[in-house]
């Protein structure tokens, strides 16, 4: 994993070195971008450093809420799922082949201000304890929480040109962030309070959930 920042840095240096030779003819286009994809919706500013290299500074956000996505076998329950990912990112778009300007290598970093997922599981049956029918508060719920907040490198491919030929174009990103090692916990209430004892197992299960795949459509407007 430590090799990834070195690779990105080398790739930027290489790009700068190559394009420094043609600095006389340099154009530095600027475009604004709106995007939509698996990391939600976002906006960015694209700046052409050299013909083959552009930098992207932007933000993305994805607040998702869904019900009953998550089921536990043999346990009748409803679930409320939420995920909130907010990041600021700086990406470099490198076009390695002059004859194929539609193909880009993309690398960079994002800082995830917020990157958490929560699943609340609520037993859906009337819970009988002997001859007693328990209230919702007495039954309680279980929260599974995961937090990936922090710095995450990004590597991917870009398809179609970085900048519009005229004013407007669309391009595509396909890549992945490698997120921080997640911090996970389980919190229970009511008769489910004891489920916090399962935190260690949950943390172990979730520790390799660090790849955040990105498939993103970008709409660019050049000034």
């Amino acid at each position, binding site marked *: 994993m430590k090799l990834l920042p070195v690779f990105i840095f080398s790739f930027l240096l290489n790009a700068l070195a190559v394009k420094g030779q043609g600095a006389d003819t340099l154009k530095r286009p600027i475009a604004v971008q709106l995007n939509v994809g*698996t990391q939600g919706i976002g906006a960015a500013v694209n700046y052409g450093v050299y013909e083959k290299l552009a930098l992207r500074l932007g933000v993305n956000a*994805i607040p998702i*809420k869904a019900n009953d996505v998550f089921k536990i076998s043999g346990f009748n329950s409803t679930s409320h799922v939420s995920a909130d990912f907010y990041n600021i990112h700086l990406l470099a778009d490198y076009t390695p082949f002059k004859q194929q300007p539609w193909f880009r290598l993309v690398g960079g970093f994002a800082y995830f201000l917020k990157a958490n997922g929560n699943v609340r599981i609520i037993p859906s049956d009337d819970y009988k304890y002997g001859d*007693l029918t328990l209230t919702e508060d007495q039954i309680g719920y*279980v929260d599974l929480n995961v937090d990936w907040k922090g710095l995450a490198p990004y590597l991917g491919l870009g398809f179609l040109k970085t900048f519009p030929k005229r004013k407007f174009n669309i391009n595509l990103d396909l890549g992945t962030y490698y997120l921080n090692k997640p911090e996970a916990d389980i919190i229970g209430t009511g*008769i489910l309070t*004891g489920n916090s004892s399962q935190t260690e197992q949950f943390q172990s299960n979730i520790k390799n959930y*660090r790849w*955040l795949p990105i498939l993103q459509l970008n709409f660019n407007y050049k000034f």
Partner: protein
Amino acid sequence: MRAIRSSIFMMVLGFIACKKPTENIKIVVDTDIIKYTALVQVTDAQTGNAAPANATITVVGENAANIYEISGKKEISLVQGMVTIGLHPNLAPTAEVPINTTVEIAAPGYTTQRKNISFTAAQRQQIVPIGISRVGNTAPPIVVPPPPVYQDVSLNFTGTCPNRPDIEIRPSVYVSFKKTGGTEPYRYLGYMDKGNISTNLLALGETYDFQIVYGGQSYIVAQKIDQSSYNLTLNMAEACNF
């Protein structure tokens, strides 16, 4: 729309990883629903042995309708002279107003006896020993000496459910004990809170039977005491009725 949201969610959170997030995670259920409890221990007053198997207990008088067996059942019966009763979970005594009730113990050949039990805000658990005497027996009750004290031992009990390996029970109940193979009756060890009990009544090198009475059933597990902490498992079918 829900399908789209679900798909996006699974894409975003369904990172590339092999392990299922819930793999090997159990559903842990606590049994401390009835908060104010009393362990009723009925013995033959003259011998100290457990009450006869056909002894019965009846809750009578004030608040009888609000008294339940610790498993939440309205049916209350003695198992080897023991049963835990408690207040309906929606009821709680206050500092000024305790909640009182009366239990009546009857057994063929024995004098029926009544005992008042008071649930107070200051005491969530209590032991209520009741000695019953044979009809016509006027001998004084036997005095059982307190058990000897040893080093501290911590016992962690986990209840399991037949056919439900995904569920674990954290029992909050009274525990009794006796030496394995011994002829003496079970004696009170302590109250197990959410599966854990610490005690200084167990001797190193001895093997004990630990018993809990729950839902009209007796659950027993044996353990030799060689160290300061043990994890023990009880198959608690009566706690799995959900």
